[in-house]
C-alpha cells in the first residue's frame, strides 16, 4: 500500500488533482487545502535508542513511570518502541517498531466516546479533550494500537520537579485518558509564529518532540496534503505501509519497511 486517505472526500479529490502534476503556490495552498498532519517512521533507521521516548515525556508532562507502574503494566508512554524477535540464537533478529497514536482517519476510538471527548479535527488530528473525558475507557478498548493510556492515579511530582512542567500542556488528572497529540501545542505555536510574520507554515517548521530528538531522522513530521513534503514523499515510497492496515483505520502514521538484505521471505511478510 502507498496512498494515504485524506480527511475529507472533497479535499481528497482536490489533493489528487494536485498530486496529478501541477505545482501549487503557497497562496493557493493557504486558500484551499488546509493541512493533514502525518508522520513517517522509517523502520530501517530506527535504532531503538529511546531518545523519542524521553523527549516525549519531558515535553508532554507525562508522569514518572515508577517501578510499580511498570510491573503493573500501568506505565504511560505516548510513544514506545516495541521490540519483536525473529528467529533463535544466534540468528535472532530484533525488530524495533515505534508506536504512537496513529491519528486515524477512521478512528475506532472516536465514535465510542459518550462524552465527545475524543474527536477528529479538520487537520486530521485525533484530539483528546481532557476536561470532557469521563473515563469510560471505551476508546482505549477500541484502539488496536494500545496507545491510549488511562490515569489510574493522580500524577505525583516532587515540588522541585514541578519547575520542569511544560506550561503549554495540561497535567492530566486521575480518571481520564491521555495520549499522543502530535505535540499540538507546537503545531499551534508554529501557526501563530507564521501568522505573526505573515507567512504560512512550511514543511519542516513543525517538529513534535520525538521527531526533533530522533538522532537518525527515522521520524519525519509534516503535511500529507502537501505533495512536496517529506512525509508525503515517504508515504509514496514503495516501502510504505500502515500498521494493522486490514483494520481500515486509515492511520496518519506511515511506516517504511525495514531493509534486510538477509531476510527470508517469511519474515518479509510480517511487515507488509
Amino acid at each position, binding site marked *: 500500500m502507498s496512498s494515504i486517505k485524506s480527511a475529507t472526500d472533497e479535499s481528497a479529490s482536490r489533493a489528487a488533482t494536485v498530486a496529478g502534476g501541477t505545482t501549487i503556490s503557497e497562496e493557493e495552498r493557504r486558500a484551499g487545502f488546509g493541512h493533514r498532519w502525518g508522520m513517517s517512521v522509517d523502520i530501517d533507521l530506527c535504532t531503538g535508542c529511546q531518545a523519542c521516548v524521553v523527549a516525549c515525556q519531558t515535553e508532554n508532562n507525562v508522569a514518572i513511570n515508577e*517501578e510499580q507502574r511498570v510491573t503493573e503494566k500501568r506505565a504511560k508512554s505516548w510513544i514506545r518502541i516495541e521490540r519483536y524477535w525473529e528467529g533463535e540464537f544466534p540468528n535472532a533478529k530484533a525488530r524495533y517498531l515505534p508506536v504512537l497514536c496513529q491519528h486515524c482517519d477512521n478512528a475506532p476510538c472516536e465514535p465510542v466516546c459518550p462524552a465527545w471527548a475524543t474527536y477528529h479535527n479538520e487537520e486530521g488530528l485525533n484530539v483528546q479533550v481532557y476536561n470532557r473525558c469521563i473515563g469510560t475507557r471505551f476508546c482505549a478498548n477500541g484502539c488496536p494500537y494500545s496507545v491510549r493510556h488511562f490515569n489510574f492515579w493522580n500524577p505525583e511530582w516532587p*515540588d522541585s520537579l514541578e519547575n520542569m512542567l511544560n506550561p503549554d500542556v495540561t497535567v492530566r*488528572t486521575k480518571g481520564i485518558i491521555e495520549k499522543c497529540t502530535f505535540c499540538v501545542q507546537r503545531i499551534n505555536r508554529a501557526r501563530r509564529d507564521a501568522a505573526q510574520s505573515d507567512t504560512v507554515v512550511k514543511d519542516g517548521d513543525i517538529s513534535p518532540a520525538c521527531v526533533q530528538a530522533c538522532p537518525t531522522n527515522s521520524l519525519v513530521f509534516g503535511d500529507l496534503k502537501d505533495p512536496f513534503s517529506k512525509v508525503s514523499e515517504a508515504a509514496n515510497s514503495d516501502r510504505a505501509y500502515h500498521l494493522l492496515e486490514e483494520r481500515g483505520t486509515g492511520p496518519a502514521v506511515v511506516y517504511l519497511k525495514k531493509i534486510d538484505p538477509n531476510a527470508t521471505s517469511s519474515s518479509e511478510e510480517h511487515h507488509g
Partner: protein
Amino acid sequence: MTSFGRRRFLAGVAGALGSGLVVGCAAPERESRVQSFVLSPEQSLPGQSIWFATADAHSQGGNSVVIRTVDGRAKKVEGNPAFPINLGKTSARSQAGVPSLYHPDRIATPLKRTGERGSGEFKKIGWDEALNLLVDKFGNSSSPTLITGRVGGTLSRVTKWFASLTSSRHLVHESLEDSTLRAAMHNAFGTRELPHIDIAHSSYILSFGADFLGTWLSPISYSTQYTKFRSNTSDNGGHRGTLTQIEPHMSLTGSNADNWVHINPGREGEVALSIAHTIVHENLVDPAISGPVLNQIGGKSALDAYAPKNVSSTSGVPAKTIMKIAKEFASHQPGVAIAGGPALAHTNGEAIGTAVLLLNRIIGSAGSDGGIKPNPSATEGTPRPLQANTFTDWVDFATEMNSQSPSALLIYDADPAYGATGAAGVKTALGSASFIAAMGPFMNDTYATADLVLPATHPFEQWGDFAPDPANGQVVVGLQQPVVTSLLDSRSFGDLLITLGSELIGKDAFPWKSMQEAVKTTALSTYKGGAEAKDTTWVELLRQGGMWENATPASFGEPSWQISSLREPNFAGTAENYTFHLIPFETVGYGTGDEGQVPFLQATPDALTTMTWTTWVEINPKSAIKLGVKRGDIVDIETPSGSFEAQVYVAPTVAPDTIAVPIGQGHRFGSRWNKGRGSDVLSFVHPFTDTAGAVAWAATRARIQATGRSAQIPAFEFTENPRNDESDPPVRVTSEQH
C-alpha cells in the same frame, strides 16, 4: 508531593464564588497571586519562551543543546542544530537534563559530616564555614590529592593550575575508562587521541562490540551519521551501507546490524587477524596497500596461524562466516573497522583493539573519507577532556593511601568508591584519608564517605567550554552558559577553585576572577574571524553555542605492534566451576552509574529487553531451561569475587554459555530513585587488567543459582499473557488514599 487535578480548579471556582458549602476545598490562594518583576528582564516578557544554547548535561562525547526556558525555569532540551557534532539531535540522556536540574534530591547546601565516616549523616552548614574548613584541611595539607571526573576545556586548565598551586596530585576517574582503546590507537596509528570515525561516508562498518549507536564514545554524532550511512546517496558509494557486528552479547547496535555474529569472549583479536588472513591470501585488496602494513607488524607469514579454520573452534565463528565477512568488507569500500565495549575488556584487550584497528590500514581506508581519520588537535585554550587514570593507577592509589601518610582529598564529579575501582580497594582506602571534601550535584557512594560535601551547579547553571572528544574532523569549541539561575546554594567547581586559590595564595593568584571571565577571555582569544566589537562577538558565539572550523588534521603515525603479541585471554574462574561468561554492559538509560539518579532514565526501557528500574540478567532460553529458571525469577550470580542478585530475563541476546548484566545500579547512596536499587555488577568482576592498565571487566566467569523467589519484572513489553504467573498478584487499579 503535590498532585494536580482539574478538581482543584473546580474547587477553586467554587471557593471564589463564595459558596461556603464545600468544606476543605477552597482555592489555594497561591494560585491567585501573581508576582511582578522588579526589574524588567532584558530579553523577555513573562510567559515568553526563550532558548539558550549551552552544553549537554550528560557528556556522551560533548554535544551542544538549546534549552527552552519560560519565566526563568528550564523546560526542555533540544539539540543545537548549528553544532557540527550532534546536528540538532539529542539522546534519552540529553533529554533527562531538565529533570536532573530540578531533581528533588540535589545537594542544596554545603554539608558537614556528623556521623561515622561512611554513614552518610550530615548537617547543613554555610559556605563561609565550608570554605574555612576547606582552606584549613585541604589547603594546608602536606600531601593533597585532587580527584575529578574527565574535566575539559578551561576548567581542566583551572584544575591543573590549582593542582600545581597546592602541589596536589591530580587523578582523573571514569567508570569505564577508554585507556585500552587509546593504547590500541597508539599501537595502530601512533596517537592516543580518539579518531574521527567517518560513518557518514562509509559503506561498510565492521564493529567488534562497539555500541556506537547506543553508548560508545559519541553516540548521538554516530547516529546522525548513520542516517547517511543507511541511505543510498552518493555519499557512501551509492548504496545502503552494511553493518556487521561481532560480539558476545547483542548490544543496541548489534540489534541493528545486517549481520550479527556471535563470538566467544576474548577471541575478537583472532577473528580480526583471520579476516586479515583471508583478505591477504585471497588478494581481496591491492597488495601494494596491505603489503607494507603487514611488513610492519610481522609479515604475511605471521597471519598463518590465524587461517579461518584455525580460529573457528576457539572463537565460535564458523570459518565460512569469517571468509564471507572478509570478502564483504574488502569489496564494500570505503569501510571502517572499530572495536569497543566488551571486545576490549579482556586481559588481551589492547591487542584485540590493535588487531581490529589495523584492519583499516590493511584495506587502505585509514585516513581517508569513509574510514577512520585523525582529528586535528584541540585549541590551546579549550583542550579535550583529560584522559582518565587507568584502573592500575587507582589500585596503586588505594595501596598508597593505606600504607603511607594519609592524604587530604578534594573530589569533584567522580565516584571511585563505586564500581570496579571501589571494589578494588578505593572504597576502603577513602576511610584512611585525613580529610575528604567532595563536590557534585548528587550524593553518591564516594561522597557519603566525605567530611565535607559541597553542592555543585548543574551544567545548565554554570559557565564553561568544551572540546568534543572525539571530534568530527573539525576543530570544535562548544560553549556552556547558565540558562537559569540556580535555585540552590550551589557553586561551580571552577569558581570554587579560583576562590580557594586566591584564599591560599592571594588575590592575584589567577588571572581571572571567575569562570565566566576565564571562559569569555579564552573564547575571544581563540576566535579569529571578524573585527567586530568584543561584546558583540561574545554574544554571537554564545548564541550559536560555540565555534568550529575545518582544519588540517594531524596525520597518523606508523604502527608499532607485532601480530605475535596477541595472547590468549585469561578468565577469572574455571569453566568447570563457573559455567557462564559474565558480560556486563552499559544501557542507554542507566549509563555507567550517575544517570540513574533521574527517574526518567531509570524508567527508560532498555531497547532489547524493555527492562527498567532494576538489575536483570539476560540468559539464553536453552540455559534457562537447563537451570530451571524462567522470566522474573530472582537468581544468585556468583563470581570468584562475590555474589549478587538479579532478575532473569530470557533472551536470545547471549549464547548458552554466556550471561549479560547491565551496569549502573547498586548504589548504596544516591537519590530516592537509585539508592539501594539493583546490584553493581562491576564490583563483582575480577580485578584482572590488560596491558594498558584498564580493568578487564568482561573477563570474569560466573555461576547461577536460583533463589526460589520470583517477581513480576519491570519490563515495558507485554508478553502474550502478562499475568500467567500464579505468583503474580492482581493489579491494583485504585489508590488506597485520596
